[in-house]
């Protein structure tokens, strides 16, 4: 009879320690996996839907944009969150390009445009960056299994950005001269937004690897950044 067989009747305390240890560790792992999967779900399923429209305030009687007018863009950045954790908007980076119709018509223009291949690949569109900036103050919450929207109202006036305003004024004026309205000029929108996942704290250690920051931070994009 070996020592193991001899002690079989007195083994129950050790078996109890084994069972309790396994149970505790399995619970810890179960909670870890549940939390990890819910964070992964947010990363995998959240999406952004941004819309924009541009209007002109104070148009002249002939439909052109006067020097005291305003080009106003409304951008709604909506994040859809089918995941089980809430999100909080951190930063919304936006860029709005106006299609430079005079440039495309062959006129020399005193501004720097971005060449973008046509959808059918046969030609080039020229785009001018009219709006470019970021918003970090919204702190809008996107609830779990819900959606949240950051509404942005962006004004472009002569006093705010002379270079961009003059370009928009020139481009919309060209459209009006061709019989179209100022609002008919096409725009392109690019959105890059970051959100914090609620309940996922950021690392405080200065030596924390980058991926640990990325775990609690969600970056979503819509459109193409033509300047990169």
């Amino acid at each position, binding site marked *: 009879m070996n*020592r*193991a067989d001899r*002690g079989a009747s*007195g083994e129950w*305390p*050790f078996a109890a*320690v*084994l069972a309790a*240890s*396994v149970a505790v*560790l*399995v619970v*810890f*792992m179960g*909670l*870890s*996996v549940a*939390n*990890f*999967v819910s*964070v*992964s*779900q947010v*990363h*995998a399923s959240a999406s952004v839907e941004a819309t924009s429209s541009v209007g002109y305030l104070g148009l002249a009687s002939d439909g052109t944009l006067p020097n005291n007018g305003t080009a106003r863009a409304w951008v709604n950045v909506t994040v859809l969150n089918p995941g089980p954790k809430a999100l909080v908007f951190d930063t919304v980076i936006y860029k709005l390009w106006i299609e430079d119709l005079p440039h495309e018509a062959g006129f020399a223009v005193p501004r720097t445009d971005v060449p973008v291949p046509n959808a059918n690949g046969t030609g080039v569109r020229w785009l001018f960056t009219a709006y470019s900036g970021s918003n970090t103050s919204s702190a809008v919450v996107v609830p779990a299994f819900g959606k949240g929207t950051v509404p942005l109202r962006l004004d472009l006036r002569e006093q705010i950005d002379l270079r961009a305003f003059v370009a928009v004024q020139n481009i919309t004026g060209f459209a009006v001269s061709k019989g179209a309205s100022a609002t008919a000029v096409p725009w392109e929108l690019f959105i890059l937004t970051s959100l914090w996942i609620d*309940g*996922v*704290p*950021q*690392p*405080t*250690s200065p030596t*924390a*690897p980058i*991926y*640990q920051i990325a*775990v*609690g931070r969600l970056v979503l994009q819509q459109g193409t950044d033509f300047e990169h």
Partner: protein
Amino acid sequence: MNIDWSAQFRRVLRILRISLVPALALGYTAFYSIYPSATFPVSSDASFGWILLVLFAASIAGGIQAEYLQEALVAGVAALPLGFALAVLLAFTPGLAGLYLLEPSAVPFFIAHFAILVLVLSFPVNLLGAVIGQLIRDRFRASRAPNRLSR
């Protein structure tokens, strides 16, 4: 030379049973150390004290199970690859739900890279815990022996 395969098999099973708790602890702590903000307990940074506590307690609980010190030490070493495999499996769990955050083939290397401290730490902790577990077991047995004789 005759080898009693049945006895060898039972011995391997017993070692696996003993290494179960340290392996679970290593898998859990390695996973926790990589994703402290998305596991349990949720924290901004991995707590070294918590990792050490879990590894040490589990290694003692494992060491208590062994009949002999040699068996406890072998189980402590066997817990390392088992725990690593478990940590990899935990990192794959979003994949089981159809979510892939990492290229599946990269996961083992990712775990090995970022949990290296826990993996290395668990080796001496498991051996020390095995020794302490054996001491506790022997003391417990010694305390029960007079009771048996008195019956």
